[in-house]
């Protein structure tokens, strides 16, 4: 992450994008929660090989789950 983040501005922008009207009495707790969430998110981002896929790639096997008789 480069530059100093304005977490309150981010919070307001993301809430608006999600169509949320945060009740005023819940705003401070949500903002504190967003700061905490941001720390957790930082832990997810690390250097990985581009070919290393995710755990939930599209799979016909998964799509057909439940449409076939068990083996």
């Amino acid at each position, binding site marked *: 992450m480069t530059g100093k983040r304005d977490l309150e501005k981010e919070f307001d922008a993301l809430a608006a994008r999600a169509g949320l009207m945060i009740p005023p009495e819940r705003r401070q707790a949500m903002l504190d929660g967003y700061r*905490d*969430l941001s*720390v957790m998110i930082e832990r997810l981002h690390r250097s990985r090989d581009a070919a290393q896929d995710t755990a*939930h790639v599209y799979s016909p096997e998964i799509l057909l789950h439940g*449409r076939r008789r068990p083996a």
Partner: protein
Amino acid sequence: MSAALHDLSIADAGRALRAGGMTSQHLTQHALERIASFDTRLNAFITLTVERALRDAQAADAAFARGEDRGPMQGIPYALKDIYDTAGIATTCHSKLRMDHVPQADCAVEEKFRAQGGVLLGKLATFEFALGGPSFDLPFPPARNPWNREHSPGGSSSGSAAAVAAGYTRLAMGSCTGGSIRGPAALCGIVGIKPTYGLISRRGIFPLSWSLDHAGPLTASVEDAAIALEVLAGYDPRDQGSANVSRPGFRAMLEAGVKGLRIGVPRHFFENAPGVSREVVAGIDHALDALREHGATIVDVRLPDYDDYAACGRIIMFTEAFAIHEKDFRERPLDFAASTYQRMVLGAFVSGADIIQAHRLRRELALASQNVLETCDALITACALDEAPSFGGRDNWTKPSDSPNQTMPWNVTGHPAIAVPTVLSSAGLPLSLQIVGKFFGELVILRIARALEKALGWPRRAPDFV
């Protein structure tokens, strides 16, 4: 005999029912009287299904009289967390948003209990939609801990743990997305097992996070837990996460002891974790000594950082939960309890790239954990980091990343994990540990749990509920 009916294991009650020394109606009436006597002070139940229970018990007795035996739950009382759909019976998720919801069909778990002739006592308190809590701004009060009513039973399967610990029933079903079976079991001095992801169908259970949710039992003893798995495990093509694997007899190895087993201990997870109680660590060490004395080999192992598992699990959980409830968060925000809202809505602030990286990290953590598990038979680590918290601090805001339990890693990876009690704290509240197994390695963790139960003198009843 009636004074100790609530302390009969499922197996012992089953034997008495089959021998004709007791009827299901007698057993059920005893449970209902116990609930009527105590639950105004514990709030474990949201809905008590008295007529249904008596009807189920009568049907079970009639089946016994005809010589029919449909399985170990025939005639045995049980209860369900109020996120399990029950046809014709309200399923509220402990939420104002679902007060009028009466399902048309039973969930898969209820289908299995009914098919065996079990006796449904009712629906149990939870944290709203299985997250947040304990909350005092909901239509029903939070459940209380039978060991001390001024303390929380944990959550989200709060009513399930309280009901078993109070001796209302030997078996209550919970659900677990980040520790909601093991956490409350730990705080209430009972057994709670989160099986391998996919072992028990979640069809008809209101989801919190599809890829992390597990169904599982909270029970008074390890044997009761094994019986519950025997009844409930199995492939369900209508649950996208269901695993098509063979089902072992989960009681088969219960008395095999731990001689020759190699048990890994990731001490770096819990030994100096923020908020860990010295008494919890001492309780784990006491249990490890007992296992060593019974012939197990205890070795230190190293897993990835605990905080990686916790962050990964919480990001996925908040994101999936927000996707489930987004319409209501936009249109009815104040109908959610404050603590539910303040956690679930965080899912709206996670980017597409964030969630993809969370899933990539999840795969890395699962593989790293599996590699460590392949060097031993099971792991033992902390479950709840302290004794049950008092309700006194209920208005204090806690960080979403804060958890009183170290349970999330095994929801992230899907490995089976069971909470078992260790010792009592100096305040007289139960402490615990958890045993983690290889994928579909429930037999081994049940075996270790049973050995510990015998060595440490459980199950025990809370003093107020002797």
